[in-house]
């Protein structure tokens, strides 16, 4: 299928959420740049990254919002959840507190995204086996109970990082194919690029008029 001047036919919006320091930015960086940052400062607000992937022969552009885990950003970062097609929920397998906070992150994600949003649980820092504080089995059970996809990964070695992002996209694509994700619904988090792009407005936000606008 041709997609005009675009070299992809879908856009999926992702968010990455979870406690500070669990490795969200490192996962994003590993996925987009295939590099690990050993000394990564806390994210200020949100970071953004993109990468084009292929699912079932379709080119898909992922637009990924990596949110800051620090508490003082939390109220505003919530406004990025809306219209996410995929949510990567991350904890650190060497810090139990980050695992204990999952239900709070999950309820935020459920409340602020749509019912079809694919939520993928990632136990990060799997390279630090000696410091493990949360077993695979325990997290797997949590994931099953809450109907989440689950994988343990390492942003450091790159282990399973691709899988987490790609599996999420596959699941979203599957939801589109079987009709459970309605592309026309507002905030589906998916844009299908039309053949004649540029003249329409494939945006997340509506375009309401506003008083006090600088016209």
């Amino acid at each position, binding site marked *: 299928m041709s997609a005009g*001047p*675009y070299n992809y036919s879908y*856009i999926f919006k992702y968010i990455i959420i979870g406690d500070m320091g669990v490795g969200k*930015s490192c996962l994003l*960086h590993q996925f987009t740049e295939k590099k690990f*940052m050993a*000394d*990564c*400062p806390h*994210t*200020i*607000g*949100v*970071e*953004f990254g*993109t990468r084009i992937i292929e699912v079932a022969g379709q080119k898909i552009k992922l*637009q990924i919002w990596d949110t800051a885990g620090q508490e*003082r950003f939390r*109220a*505003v970062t919530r*406004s990025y959840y*809306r219209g996410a097609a995929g949510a990567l929920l991350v904890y650190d397998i060497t810090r139990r507190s980050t695992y204990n906070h999952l239900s709070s992150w999950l309820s935020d994600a459920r409340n602020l995204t749509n019912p079809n949003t694919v939520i993928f649980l990632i136990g990060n820092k799997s390279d630090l086996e000696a410091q493990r504080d949360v077993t695979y089995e325990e997290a797997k059970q949590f994931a099953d109970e809450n109907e989440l996809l689950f994988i343990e990964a390492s942003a450091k070695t790159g282990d399973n990082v691709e899988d987490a992002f790609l599996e999420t996209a596959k699941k979203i694509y599957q939801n589109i194919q079987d009709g459970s994700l309605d592309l026309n619904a507002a905030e589906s988090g998916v844009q299908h690029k039309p053949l004649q*792009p*540029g003249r329409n407005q*494939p*945006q*997340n*936000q*509506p375009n*309401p008029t*506003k008083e*006090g*606008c*600088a016209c």
Partner: protein
Amino acid sequence: MTSAVFPLTVYVLVFITIVFAILLERETDGGKMEDVLDESVSEEDLRKFERRYHDSLAQGTVTHVIQFEYAWCLIRSKYPTDVKRGIFLLEDLSKGENESGKRDCIYYLAIGNAKIKEYSKALGYTKVLLQVEPGNRQVQTLKHTIEKRMEREGLKGMAIIGGAALALGSLIGLGVALARK
């Protein structure tokens, strides 16, 4: 004979101008979300944080957090007046904040200034941040984004001037053609 040639060149020039403008337009709004500067806050969220700020202002209970959250949403607005107000609130905050709070403010001051095309100011803020944390990739990325934006705007400015010159040329051509009649 010349009177027939002139309108033809006029048409060709106008056509080239239009094609050029469309190509540039596509380049600027084609991919839509390419970086943090393309994103904007929803009306609903902006209203929510605005109400919270004004309520606490009325009660005299404005905290740094409440002001920062409102300012951050204003910076994300697509309306320049909002962005300018956000910049004003952040400048106010950055005077009194602690170190990490200052860093947040300066980062969003860079974004806000870039959004209202105050590029040199915006770059100045990223340089301040990089002096403290030279290896901060998030800030480096923002700096790069702003520089790219400047380049693109420069190109667009040239195209507009070029287009105007062509249009003027066409008019003169038309005038000459008419005078010949």
